[in-house]
């Protein structure tokens, strides 16, 4: 039997909305966060109704910002680098980083990658084109390489006493570029796109990005997890493996190897929900890590 194209089974079983809804939710999440940043004080029109006395709903960028002109939020990955570079504890950044950390302990560390980070849109597009044109992988690096790069980031920060990674980090470059002006930064973003498209499937986010590695460690024991609740219903169509950005996380829970429970308790799972969308027999769903 010839294999159906990826997603065809889900489309037949569930219709378009059910087989795309988490993807749509993620795009809405990613874009509305950027929109809130871009609107600046204009966004407060939804609260005050007029702009006589506008206030900032959120000010700054994903690196660090102030919500409603009071609550600080700081990226713990960047804050970690300032500490490693030998800078003093700063209360504002510390509180901001703690709030963010607690949030990702709830929703899953790498939910940052799939629900917040705009680079995800770039690499997802590359992945989509890759499937569309049936491009084969060229060179497969180890997904563990990102932890080595994270190690390098840490060592460099300590040795140089400076945030060296932030001189080249394509992720923060892209996030900042959207909000403050990209300039020649497009070159870097296009390079990441082409790398993902032509070289390695999910090459940047899944193999190299130390920020993703950091967030995966941060949310190692996070509350919300996807589980293969109806794994008995799996018909081995492999669509979830084709679509998952971290396909290695699925097998143990789906196949119940070595008595592994249905909860995908893997730090690299980004909680993106694509497997839920793409699965015809509706095997996967969001749940808590504690409900086995």
């Amino acid at each position: 039997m010839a294999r159906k194209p990826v997603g065809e089974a889900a489309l037949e079983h569930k219709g378009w909305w059910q087989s795309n809804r988490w993807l749509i939710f993620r795009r809405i999440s990613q874009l509305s966060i950027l929109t809130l940043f871009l609107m600046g004080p204009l966004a407060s029109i939804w609260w005050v109704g007029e702009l006589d006395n506008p206030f900032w709903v959120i000010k700054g960028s994903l690196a660090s910002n102030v919500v409603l002109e009071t609550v600080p939020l700081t990226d713990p990955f960047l804050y970690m680098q300032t500490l490693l570079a030998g800078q003093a504890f700063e209360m504002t950044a510390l509180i901001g980083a703690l709030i963010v950390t607690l949030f990702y302990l709830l929703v899953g560390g790498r939910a940052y990658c799939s629900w917040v980070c705009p680079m995800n849109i770039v690499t997802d597009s590359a992945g989509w084109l890759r499937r569309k044109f049936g491009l084969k992988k060229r060179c497969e690096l180890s997904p563990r390489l990102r932890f080595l790069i994270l190690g390098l980031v840490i060592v460099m920060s300590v040795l140089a006493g400076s945030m060296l990674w932030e001189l080249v980090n394509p992720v923060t470059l892209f996030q900042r570029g959207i909000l403050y002006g990209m300039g020649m930064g497009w070159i870097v973003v296009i390079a990441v796109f082409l790398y993902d498209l032509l070289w390695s499937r999910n090459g940047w986010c899944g193999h190299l990005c130390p920020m993703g590695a950091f967030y995966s460690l941060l949310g190692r024991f996070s509350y919300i997890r996807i589980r293969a609740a109806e794994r008995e219903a799996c018909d081995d169509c492999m669509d979830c493996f084709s679509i998952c950005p971290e396909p290695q996380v699925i097998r143990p829970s789906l196949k119940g190897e070595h008595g592994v429970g249905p909860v995908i308790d893997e730090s690299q799972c980004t909680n993106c929900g694509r497997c839920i969308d793409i699965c015809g027999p509706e095997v996967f769903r969001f749940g808590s890590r504690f409900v086995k």
Partner: protein
Amino acid sequence: MSQKKRVNRREFLAEGGKAVGGLALLGAAIGGYGKQAASMPAYALRPPGALSEEDFLGACVRCGVCVKDCPYDILHLAEWQEEVALGTPYFIARDIPCEMCEDIPCVRNCPTGALNRTMEDIEKAEMGTAVLVDQETCLNLLGLRCDICYRVCPVLDEAITLERFHNTRTGSHALFVPTVHADQCTGCGKCEYACPLPVAAIKVLPDKLAKGEAGAHYRLGWKEKEKAGAALVTPDIEHQYNLPSGFSYDLLGDGLISPEQKGGQ
């Protein structure tokens, strides 16, 4: 990693060696680039209250809150391929200078203290120091009364004063030379912005380029005298001339003066 493959020692060493080699290369490249990126170009100025450049690059998370908080849109985050370290805030005085807001909004929300949040007096800012870099094109040094840099300075008549000198070219006019007093200058860049020449004759430079440093052992006699409230050396005794009766001696002027000359005057 739940599906660990068994790896033998040889494979482990080979794979590990590749990874470490690659990382060492990457680290070396970024490290070298980082050294270059740490050298701010002389035309770029940090916002008020910025830590020393070395600390600033370790503290600033490149969030851009200062950019949003600046009411005059003066600050800019360095983009890819700009000469300033990627993502860090700066301004170029000749394009748009700092307005020196009294409440210093740009430093208030800095999350990491890369800008000193507790800074209170904007006139204590040390963004750089103005220097009259070109004494050949400055209109005041050509003998005109341009005075623009002097008049736009927010620390008026303190950071820049006009010092009067003799105009030796005409022989009968004065030069009013704009003179920067570094301890008063905040580096806001208003003077550089306002200079009417096609290329400014007065420029704000980073302190390390703008300032010299006097030897630690140097003492300025007149200042020491002021501090002590009296001369520090015994004053010269007035010279006594042993002259014939009626004669006097003017050391700096006429020399020996006879009684006849005196009478004739």
